[in-house]
């Protein structure tokens, strides 16, 4: 074990100049005055506001300046770090923190582009619900402390209760869409929510989805995904715009629901609909439902690139994101409505009371009603399915 740890330490040479994550006082002291460039998707006003608030709080408590670099696609940040590595920019790269998960994390971890392990040494890790939530694996890939969780997400379907009733399975959704053409769509893959919809279809159609937890192979891929393509061939002509165009992202479907173009859409944030109602972006008749067999869930993480010049500041932000204070705010539907990653049992009474006092909003299902969480398939499935989708439907005639 000891020699393994030594090997790990040697392998992580670029990190040697950086402060040891387990020495929190030193981390906090060095972080003072650092500027952290957090690359995070910038398409949602509520998320942007939350990040701005995080920036104010870490500036107050730790003297860390947080700059939100607004991405249209997280892959941009991965490319950036990759180009920097090629160009030999091994210190003080452009990015200090990335909102990341899934295939992007797997790619960065694979290519040794991440700083760490650091996540489980952070002081607020003690509150994290390690047993009940998928915070140590990311799309089946072990995180190994190279990213720290900050929000839980689960697939829910947003629907306008003025026009329809909740549905229980993907087959029900197909039947409903055939009866009500043009009222449902999903974001265009490779957008993560669009890709998640494809996975959700597959998980719901398969009798036994356990095959998805192993990497896809050339042998089983065709056979396992066949029901998905049959389903989509039937569904696509009944979609909004007959599947000739797709919304770019999940939030881009809100105005479509508000205008009455869509009655049904998919979301990865159980509280997003309530937050959008509060922001005048959705009519107040919108509600959410989950499928009878449950829906896919995962965690959002932050990771630090290996060449960040402000790893200490980035760890301070990562730690703050796991704090009860930040988590309560993120779960507040007036702010974000994201699920917490914390274990309620690990909190003090006072901290727990803050969570209990939250009014989750009219469109948000209670944790009990959210039901069973299905595991994310291995990232190799998502990559291949998204590629195949682009070939079949992304270059439509």
């Amino acid at each position, binding site marked *: 074990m000891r020699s393994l740890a030594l090997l790990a330490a040697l392998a992580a040479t670029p990190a040697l100049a950086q402060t040891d994550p387990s020495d929190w006082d030193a981390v906090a002291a060095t972080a003072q005055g650092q500027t952290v460039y957090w690359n995070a998707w910038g398409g949602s006003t509520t998320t942007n506001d939350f990040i701005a608030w995080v920036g104010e709080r870490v500036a107050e408590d730790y003297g860390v300046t947080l700059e939100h670099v607004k*991405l249209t696609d997280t892959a941009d940040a991965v490319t950036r770090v990759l180009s920097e590595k090629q160009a030999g920019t091994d210190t003080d790269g452009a990015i200090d923190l990335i909102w990341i998960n899934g295939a992007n994390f797997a790619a960065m971890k694979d290519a040794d582009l991440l700083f760490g392990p650091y996540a489980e040494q952070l002081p607020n890790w003690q509150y994290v619900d390690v047993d009940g939530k998928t915070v140590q694996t990311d799309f089946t890939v072990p995180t190994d402390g190279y990213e720290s969780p900050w929000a839980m997400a689960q697939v829910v379907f947003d629907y306008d209760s003025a026009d329809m009733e909740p549905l229980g399975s993907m087959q029900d959704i197909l039947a409903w869409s055939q009866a009500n053409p043009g009222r449902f769509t999903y974001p265009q893959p490779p957008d993560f929510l669009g890709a998640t919809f494809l996975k959700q279809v597959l998980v719901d159609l398969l009798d036994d989805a356990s095959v998805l937890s192993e990497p896809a192979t050339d042998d089983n891929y065709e056979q396992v995904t066949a029901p998905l393509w049959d389903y989509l061939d039937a569904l696509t002509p009944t979609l909004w715009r007959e599947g000739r165009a797709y919304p770019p992202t999940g939030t881009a479907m809100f105005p479509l629901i508000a205008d009455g173009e869509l009655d049904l859409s998919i979301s990865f944030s159980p509280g997003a609909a309530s937050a959008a109602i509060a922001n005048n972006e959705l009519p107040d008749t919108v509600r959410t439902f989950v499928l009878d067999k449950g829906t896919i869930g995962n965690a959002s993480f932050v990771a630090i690139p290996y060449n960040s010049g402000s790893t200490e500041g980035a760890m301070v932000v990562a730690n703050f994101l796991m704090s009860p204070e930040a988590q309560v705010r993120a779960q507040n539907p007036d702010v974000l409505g994201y699920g917490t990653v914390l274990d309620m049992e690990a909190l003090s009474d006072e901290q727990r009371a803050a969570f209990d006092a939250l009014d989750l909003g009219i469109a948000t299902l209670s944790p009990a009603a959210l039901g069973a969480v299905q595991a994310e398939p291995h990232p190799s499935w998502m990559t291949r399915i998204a590629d195949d989708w682009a070939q079949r439907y992304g270059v439509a005639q």
Partner: protein
Amino acid sequence: MLGPLLAGIYGTILPAFGHLPAAGLTGPSLDAFRALFDWPGLPHAVTLSLTTGLTTTFIALFIVVGLVAGWSGTRSFRALERALSPLLSVPHAAAAFGLAFLIAPSGWIARAGSPWLTGWDRPPDVLILQDHWGLTMTAGLIIKEIPFLLLMTLAALGQADVVRARTVAAALGYGRVTGWLKCVFPRVYSQIRLPVYVVLAYGMSVVDVAVILGPNTPPPLSVQIVRWMSAPDFNARLLANAAAILQLALVIGALLVWRLGEGLVAMLGRRWIMAGTRSTCDPVIAAASVTLAATSALAIGGGLAVLAVWSFAGFWGFPDALPDAFSLQNWSRHASGLGDALGQTVLIAACVTLVSLALAIGCLEAEHRHGLRLTQRGMWLLYLPLIVPQTAFLPGLQTFLLNAGLDTGIAPVMLAHLVFVLPYVFLSLADPFRAWDRRTATVAAALGASPNRVLWAVRLPMLLRPVLTATAVGLSVSVGQYLPTLLIGGGRVSTLTTEAVALSSGGDRRAIATYALMQTAAALVPFALALGLPALAYRNRKGLQHG
């Protein structure tokens, strides 16, 4: 200014042929091109690029020529000219957002007519935005290119001896449009040829307008290049560079086709002129062009109006013509973000424009003192950065800067903006600068002023109006830059334009509207100042007030 261009193209060609030493790839190989030609979306993406570019250029040119031929000198022409000129500075992205909010199935036009006229209580499920053939995107480009071509044409008219040509043609019994086309157009076209090429190349390779209005299944080639550029996988990067080379080849090919078309039109036109027909479709062309031009001005104006309504809107469901409530919540919510982005935008635009002005005035003054004159070839060099598609050399320039250790931060972004701002500043300043009456300089010199004193104390003050106009042009070009800011800034430099386009994927119409309006203001306010300041400065100089 050719340095960044050449560095960029060089940096694009190498990886396209599989040479990227940093990734352990040494070429040459054709794998990237093979993969590109295997992409099933390629035929349509290439077709889109060609049709958008050619259609935009043809229609915009048709409208402008018809407008000038049929109406120049009339009162309605002056009114339209006044309406169109400020629209030149409205950034492409803002105009595209406005158009989208106007003509979408749930847009303002559909709302205004529903349900009383159309019977719709839900928006119709029709594909208007993101349509397969990019028609909406083409329309979005046309409405923005009309003001540009119109101003370029008006500038060229000064040297075309229009009044006498028109009088002679009219005396020979030619109608207004026919006479203009036969006598004036050949002279004018040779002068607006380069701006027309700019429109063609821009229409073929535009990214921001295509992201907002263009199709996605598949997208035009330029958008796909940017997507591949940002994919985490290396091979996609090589693919992007190969596609960039293809894009460059396409633009060159389209320019050649256009050039051949010019030859054909010239041949047929000569025959038409010689035939001496007094055409009868004059009123049709005149009416069509003025209607289309007025529609395009209304589209931009209406687009900005609907952006303004959205930016103050509370809940606004379909088919209400106006929101349930108006509030400032949205503006106050985005105030700090807008402030930051505005600061960056203004800083970049101001520095780049100042440098461009200094360089342009320096060049023109050197021309004046040493009796030089920019040749046709020189004009080509100046126009080159505007004609070479941005997607063809910016990815390479990014790699080049990264390798040189010069990447990130605001300075490289300014350098990249300079490549695009300088030509426009030079072009808008050159004609008035050269047209200045040299005898004034002779008088000043006779009174003992040195050449520098003549420049600072006589020439520039007299040329205050064109200098300010050039400044406003420079600022608005810089404000509107999307791709150079995004790629060269590495995401760290966020201007109003990059923020607005980033928001477009989220679909929050209120946020998009506030950023797009702010972006428009950043480009329009300098124009207003350029119009207003000379009147103030010249209030005691009557002779200069209309100069």
